[in-house]
């Protein structure tokens, strides 16, 4: 019985595969060579995948990262075409077909063409906004990937059983690195999603503030408060990665900032809009009154409105500046921390 090395690889978009030591063969005189042809293509893919992940983790140059991504996409597409052209083995095509299907999905995942994988319209209907729709689409697509990956595993086992091939677990260096990178990225994603939900919600709040839309401000403020509290509760459950709590801590700092922004700072800004409107109305009414009709109470009320409004302006400006400075510092810190985390833990 021939023994075939298997390598498990974990890719950052969550697909796993059994890798077999490569032997190049165009004609498949035996089942081992048939399986090995497939595994050779996977080797190429995993090498490109590793280059891409390394670049994402350690390089600052977007052009380099993008180049690696495009290489990976191209490799996947080529592999799919090659395996598609494979004949079946003694009338058995399930292994080939499952791998083709899997690679097809991988390609779509890499190009983020989710419309081909899931019902985007249905997802849009169930989602609050584009962000939620995107995350939900990704989640559903990942589920399909998991199913496809499971199918491949099952077909490989069936094929091996049928032809008396012994499948063994072993990993080459790339596979080990990919697995490690996969763990790091999975951990990072957990924290990132918590951060991103509140970050996006704050963006909605800021948009409402620029339009002086009190309705929008108040609704988004209350949601930001809820999201940041929920985020903090989730973060408590997440331990550090290999003892490293840096991105968790950075995320917590941001969530606490959002919580303060929502609970105590934004009400100061909203108050300004209310006082501004009141001041404008009192001014109009005061000026419309003929001098002979103005009473001392009118004058006092007017002066109070002026004073309230001036104080509200000062509070508004002070609060705005505070928030902007704090936000910029914390976001800069987050970006630095994430880069350092990736640098440290991705091989």
């Amino acid at each position, binding site marked *: 019985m021939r023994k075939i090395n298997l390598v498990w690889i974990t890719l950052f978009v969550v697909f796993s595969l059994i890798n077999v030591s490569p032997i190049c063969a165009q004609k498949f005189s035996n089942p081992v060579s048939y399986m090995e042809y497939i595994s050779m293509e996977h080797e190429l893919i995993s090498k490109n995948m590793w280059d891409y992940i390394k670049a994402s983790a350690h390089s600052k140059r977007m052009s380099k990262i993008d180049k690696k991504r495009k290489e990976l996409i191209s490799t996947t597409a080529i592999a799919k075409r090659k395996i598609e052209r494979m004949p079946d083995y003694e009338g058995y095509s399930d292994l080939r077909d499952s791998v083709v299907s899997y690679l097809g999905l991988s390609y779509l995942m890499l190009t983020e063409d989710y419309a081909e994988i899931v019902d985007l319209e249905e997802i849009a209907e169930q989602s609050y906004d584009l962000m939620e729709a995107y995350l939900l689409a990704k989640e559903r697509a990942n589920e399909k990937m998991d199913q496809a990956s499971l199918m491949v595993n099952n077909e490989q086992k069936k094929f091996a059983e049928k032809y008396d091939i012994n499948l063994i677990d072993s990993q080459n260096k790339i596979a080990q690195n990919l697995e490690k990178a996969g763990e790091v990225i999975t951990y990072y994603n957990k924290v990132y999603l918590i951060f991103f939900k509140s970050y996006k919600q704050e963006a*909605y709040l800021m948009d409402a503030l620029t339009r*002086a839309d*009190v309705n*929008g401000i108040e609704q988004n403020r209350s*949601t930001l408060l809820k999201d940041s509290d929920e985020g903090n509760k989730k973060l408590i459950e997440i331990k550090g990665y290999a003892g490293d709590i840096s991105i968790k801590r950075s995320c917590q700092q941001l969530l606490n900032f959002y919580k303060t922004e929502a609970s105590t700072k934004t009400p100061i800004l909203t108050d300004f809009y209310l006082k501004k409107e009141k001041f404008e109305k009192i001014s109009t009414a005061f000026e419309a009154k003929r001098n002979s009709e103005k009473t001392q109470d009118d004058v006092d*009320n007017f002066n109070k409105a002026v004073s309230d409004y001036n104080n509200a302006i000062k509070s508004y400006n002070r609060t705005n500046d505070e928030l902007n400075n704090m936000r910029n510092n914390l976001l800069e810190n987050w970006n630095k921390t994430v880069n350092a985390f990736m640098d440290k833990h991705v091989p």
Partner: protein
Amino acid sequence: MLVVLKKNHYQPHDIDNDLSRKICRNYINALDPYDLIFTSNDKKEFAKFNTCLVKKDNLAYCGFLSSVFATYRVRLSQADSIINLLSKISLEYNKKEDFIFNFQDTLSKKLDKSSLRDRWRKYIKYQMLDYVDVQNDIDSERNFKSFLDQESELREKVILKEKCRIKRILNHPSGFESFLTSIFLNEIAVIYDPHTMFFLPDEKDNFEISLSKKAKSFGLAFSDDEDGEIRIENLVPGGPAWKSNILNGGDIILEIRKPDNTLVDISCIDMYTLHTILQSAELNTIELKVRKNNGQIKTVKLYKEELFIEENKISSFILDGEIKIGYINLPGFYTNWEQEYTLGCANDVAKEILKLKKEQIEGLILDVRNNGGGSVAEAMDLAGIFIDSGPLSVYKEKNVKPRLIKDINRGTIYDGPLVLLVNKLSASASEFLAAVLQDYNRAIIVGSTTYGKATGQVIIPNDTSYTSNSINQTENTSAQGYLKITNSKFYRVNQKSFQKTGVIPDVVLPDILDYYNVGEASNLYALKNDTIIKKVYYNALPSFPIDELQKLSAKRTELNTNFKMIKSLEETFKRFTTSPEKISLYRDSLINRIEESGYLFQAIEGLNIPISDRLIVKSNDFDRDLIEIDQNKMEINKKIIEDISNDIYIVECLKILNDLITIKQENGDEKN
């Protein structure tokens, strides 16, 4: 216009012979609703053109309108002469005779000049009924005698009113033929559905202003008195008329001069036409000549400025009863039609809720009674104040897949107990709001079943070349007028519709309006009620204890004098509000009618809450000094507070909220 309707209406009709005949007959009826103007021969002549809408869509070739215009002009002048003669003859109140309102298009009925003269005599008699005083301290016989003593003087007033009505048609500011054409176009429009209508250019401005918060205005309102004089009713504080320091309430308008030096013909003008002329976007300045109370004549030039429209401002109040409740009345879903990102009524309600929350309210009443709708976008934003997130409605246009309308902002501003108060005149955007809040179990809907309008309209130029991706673009000016056109339907998140059925409240309270034949279902051409097939995912809150709340409320209304009185008036009101085919003009019948209307009037006036039982109502703290500085606002505010404290429906809403809070607390205690 037919082409524009076919392209854009949600459910366009093909105009066949039957429909063409119907439209033409309806048009003649609209011009002469009481069979006082056209003779039978005239109608026979018009009937020859009845299928013109099918044969050609250019009516100038059809000949129908030109025939009607020419004949109408002649007959109106003849009617004017007939009316003049009636001021010199007795109207005979002891004669047993009836006035049949309309012969329902019976061409065989002989209407010639002589029978028209007699119909005018009866019609003037019928109009005189409005002038019979109902004084409760004397009997109706004596009331009638007092009427007969002043009869000839009152008859002069009625005759003058009818002459003015004729004059307004003949001398319409848009032109006689243009005005009559617009009526015809509306008879076509209404066949499509009751909310599709044709606007002359100035009428469109008027419509939009009524649904706006701000508008350019001269800042004064007019009224006409029985002598036909137009007076300044009031001035908007801070507005152009106010700032002139020359004009005052009560001044009589002698002349209104336009920039081209022409005068607005104010003899016989009605207030709607006068406001339409003055609110026209093309008129930015006028010169007014007035007579002051002391007899002096003054002239003043006014320039339009942007002012807040008082009817479309909202204020919030605190009701102090068993619990402290906030109250907001929303008269219409106003917005700023010109901007893409609007801050309209939803934003204003949000601000009022913030002010109320500062005073720790335990519940909120949002009152949309008599709110006929407006901007659906505002209704969506308003629903979003109370709904966290999710779909609000399914929207459907012709030939387009249905799509979901969603809450644009995640989150809420107010999460506490909420009642939405509605009545039969709560329509369209008000019903949209009621349906969402009911389907999400977010508010208790209290009052009467709503109007039943689940359609959406847009205003587009009456121009076949018009196309727009942004269908609410109304900046285009169209000399051919505009169409308000029904282009969409709304469905609830449970896929059902409130079209024709209305939104049925969770707690129903008796209302006099229920006895009137109003509502979408009363319109012959209303679009039908149907459902939509669309998957909708939404998370409703836990249900309210509706059965219990209904029982508790029913117990109170059964014992409440005012609600009992309303229920007892059902038969009488239905008799009065059903349009009769004819009315008896005989003296004894008139006296009976007067007695009954007097009784109804007295009953309605008597619907009051005893002063000791009235709610304590005050403005919110935040706005108090703003109100105090403005005399005008203070007076308006005082009146509003008085009305709220004496409103039996608002009191019952407060009690329902109290029941809800109590039940929740009891259920909370049981769980513990």
